[in-house]
C-alpha cells in the first residue's frame, strides 16, 4: 500500500492526473485565450494553489481507485478482491423486569433491579472472492458465560473471573466472555433461480428470524416462538434459495436440509431435518411480503456408559429421549407510507417416540416436557412520523396444549417507541405485560410479568 501511495503521489504532480482517474481532460477552447495566456491572478493561484492539501487529494484519488478496483472485481474484470467487508451492530440499554419476590420466575432471570445491559455486539465478515461466490460470517461477542445462573437442581452461577497474569501488578483480573457464531456460510449462485449455501445459517422462516438484528427488528421483545425456538433459530446443513421476478413482484423459495435440533454439534441420528419457505414479495411505494414456512425434523439424546462387563472395553449407548416435530407458519409484512404491519402465526407439534423417555423440562427438577401442540401468533402495527419517530403496538398470544409448567395460555400486550436519530443510530423502548393463564389445570395461574426495556442501537 505504501508503494501504491508513493506512486500516486509521484504521478499526481503530472498535469491532469486527477482527472485521468475518471474525468476526461478538458480540451482547451480556441476562443478561451486565458487558457493560453493566464492572467496575473491565475499565475498567483498557480504559485499558491488553493483547495485541499495534497494528502486530502491523494486520499480522494486512492479512494476512487479502490472504488474502481472493487467494482471491476465484482464485475469479473479484475483479480478477485481479497478485501473483507467488515460491518455490524451493537446495542446497549437499560431494563427492568417487574417481579414479586416470591415469583418462581426469579429463578430464570437474575435480577429484579433496574440494570444496564450490553446486548448484541455482532460483527460481520463478508467476502466475495469471485463473481457468484460469497462467504459470510457473523459472530456475536458476549460477556457470557460469566454470571449465567442455573438450578440443576441446586443454584449455581458461573464465574469466569481470572487473574490477568499479563498485568505487571499481578493483581488485576478479567472476566472472560464468549463468542457466538450466528452464521458462517459460503454460497455459490448459479442463477437468479438457484443459489446453494452450506454452513451454519439462520433458519429462513417467517419475518423475525430473517430480520434477525436489533437494527432491523421493530420490537425489542422476542415472540415466544423465537424464544422457545419452535423452529431452531440456526441450523447446520445446506440451503438452496432463489426467486423469479415478475415486474414489481418476485416469487421466492428456500429449501434446507440440516442436522436439525441437536443436543451437541453433530447429529446423533441419520435422519435429517427438512425445512422450506415460499414467499411473494412486492417492491415499490407499497412493499409487502406474504410467506409460508414449514419444518420437519427429529431430535434425540443419548447417554453413554463405559462397559467392561465382557472383559473388553465397550461403550453402552442408551437413548435418553427422542421425538419428532413439525412446524408450519404464515407471515405477512406490509410497509405502506409510514405504516408498518408485521404478523406471524405458527403451529408447532412435538411427539415423543414410543418407549423413549421425554425430554427434561423447565419445570421442577425431574419434570419432563409432554407431547404438545403449541400455537403462536403476534401482530405489530407501527407508524413512523416526522421521519424519526415510531410508536407501535404489539400483541402476542401463545397457547400450549397440554399446559407447560404453570400455564397453557399467555397473552402479551405491549407498547413501544423507536427513535431513529440516523439510519445507523436508534433508540428503542418497549413496555410489555405478559399474562399467564392455566385454562385446563386445577390451579389457575395468575403470574404476570411486566418489563421495561430500552436499547441504544448502533450500526457500524
Amino acid at each position, binding site marked *: 500500500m505504501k508503494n501504491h501511495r508513493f506512486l500516486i503521489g509521484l504521478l499526481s504532480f503530472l498535469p491532469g492526473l486527477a482527472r485521468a482517474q475518471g474525468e476526461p481532460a478538458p480540451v482547451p477552447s480556441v476562443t478561451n485565450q486565458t487558457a493560453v495566456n493566464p492572467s496575473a491572478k491565475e499565475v498567483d493561484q498557480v504559485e499558491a494553489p488553493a483547495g485541499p492539501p495534497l494528502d486530502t487529494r491523494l486520499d480522494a484519488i486512492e479512494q476512487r481507485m479502490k472504488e474502481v478496483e472493487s*467494482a471491476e472485481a465484482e464485475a469479473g*474484470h479484475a483479480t478477485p478482491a481479497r478485501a473483507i467487508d467488515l460491518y455490524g451492530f451493537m446495542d446497549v440499554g437499560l431494563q427492568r423486569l417487574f417481579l414479586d419476590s416470591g415469583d418462581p420466575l426469579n429463578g430464570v432471570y437474575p435480577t429484579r433491579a433496574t440494570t444496564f445491559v450490553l446486548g448484541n455486539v455482532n460483527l*460481520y465478515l463478508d467476502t466475495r472472492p469471485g463473481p457468484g461466490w460469497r462467504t459470510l460470517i457473523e459472530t456475536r461477542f458476549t460477556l457470557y458465560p460469566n454470571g449465567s445462573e442455573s438450578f440443576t437442581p441446586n443454584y449455581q452461577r458461573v464465574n469466569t473471573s481470572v487473574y490477568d497474569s499479563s498485568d505487571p501488578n499481578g493483581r488485576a483480573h478479567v472476566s472472560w466472555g464468549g463468542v457466538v457464531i450466528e452464521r458462517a456460510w459460503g454460497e455459490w449462485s448459479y442463477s437468479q433461480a438457484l443459489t446453494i449455501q452450506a454452513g451454519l445459517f439462520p433458519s429462513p422462516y417467517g419475518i423475525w428470524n430473517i430480520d434477525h438484528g436489533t437494527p432491523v427488528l421493530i420490537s425489542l421483545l422476542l415472540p415466544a416462538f423465537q424464544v422457545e425456538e419452535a423452529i431452531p433459530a440456526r441450523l447446520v446443513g445446506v440451503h438452496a434459495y432463489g426467486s423469479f*421476478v415478475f415486474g414489481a413482484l418476485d416469487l421466492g423459495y428456500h429449501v434446507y436440509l440440516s442436522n436439525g435440533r441437536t443436543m451437541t454439534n453433530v447429529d446423533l441420528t441419520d435422519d435429517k431435518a427438512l425445512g422450506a419457505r415460499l414467499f411473494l414479495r412486492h417492491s415499490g411505494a407499497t412493499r409487502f411480503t406474504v410467506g409460508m414456512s414449514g419444518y420437519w425434523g427429529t431430535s434425540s439424546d443419548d447417554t453413554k456408559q463405559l462397559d467392561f462387563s465382557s472383559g473388553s472395553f465397550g461403550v453402552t449407548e442408551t437413548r435418553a429421549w427422542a421425538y419428532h416435530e413439525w412446524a408450519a407458519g404464515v407471515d405477512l409484512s406490509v410497509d405502506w407510507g409510514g405504516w408498518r404491519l408485521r404478523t406471524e402465526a405458527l403451529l408447532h407439534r412435538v411427539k415423543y417416540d414410543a418407549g423413549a423417555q421425554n425430554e427434561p423440562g423447565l419445570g421442577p427438577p425431574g419434570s419432563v416436557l409432554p407431547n404438545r401442540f403449541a400455537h403462536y401468533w403476534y401482530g405489530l402495527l407501527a407508524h413512523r412520523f416526522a421521519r424519526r419517530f415510531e410508536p407501535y403496538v404489539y400483541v402476542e398470544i401463545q397457547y400450549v396444549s397440554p399446559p407447560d409448567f404453570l400455564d397453557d395460555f399467555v397473552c402479551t400486550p405491549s407498547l413501544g417507541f423507536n427513535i431513529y436519530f440516523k439510519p445507523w443510530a436508534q433508540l428503542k423502548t418497549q413496555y410489555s405485560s405478559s399474562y399467564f393463564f392455566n385454562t385446563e389445570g386445577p390451579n389457575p395461574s395468575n403470574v404476570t410479568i411486566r418489563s421495561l426495556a430500552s436499547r441504544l442501537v448502533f450500526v457500524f
Partner: protein
Amino acid sequence: MAMLGCLLSHPSGAEEPAELVVIVHPSSPVRALSANDLRAVFTRVLRDWPDRTPVTAINLAPSVPERVVFDRVVLGMDPDDVAQFWIDQMIRGDSPPPRQLSSAAAIVDLVSRTPGAIGYIPDSKLKPRVKVVARIRRSQVVMP
C-alpha cells in the same frame, strides 16, 4: 466498512439534473427498462438478465446529486431511507448494496467493458459505446 461509510454519508438534498440516462453494455439484449425493472435491479432483487448474464449494477456515490435524484424517482426513497434499506439488507445477511463509483466517466467506462453491467449518468456525459435503456426526465422513468 468503507461500503457502509459511503452508505451512511449523504447530502441533505439535491438539485434536479436535466436528465439522467440508464446505460447498459451494448451487447445486452435489454432494449428498455421500466421503473419496476430498475427498482428490482438497483435493490438487487433481479440478479440475472433474461440471457442469464449476471446483473452488475453500478451506483453513483451517495454524495453525487444525480444519485439522490435516481433513488428518489426509481426507488421512491430519500437518502436516509436508502441507507436504512441497505443496513437492513446487510444485517439480514442479504445482498450488499451495488458498488458505487464517484464519476459518470468511470461508470461509462465500466459499463462499456462489462456485459451485464448497468449504471446511470447525466445525459450530458453519455458516450456512444454504451446503450441507453431508460431515461429519467422530470422525475419520471421514460422509455429511451
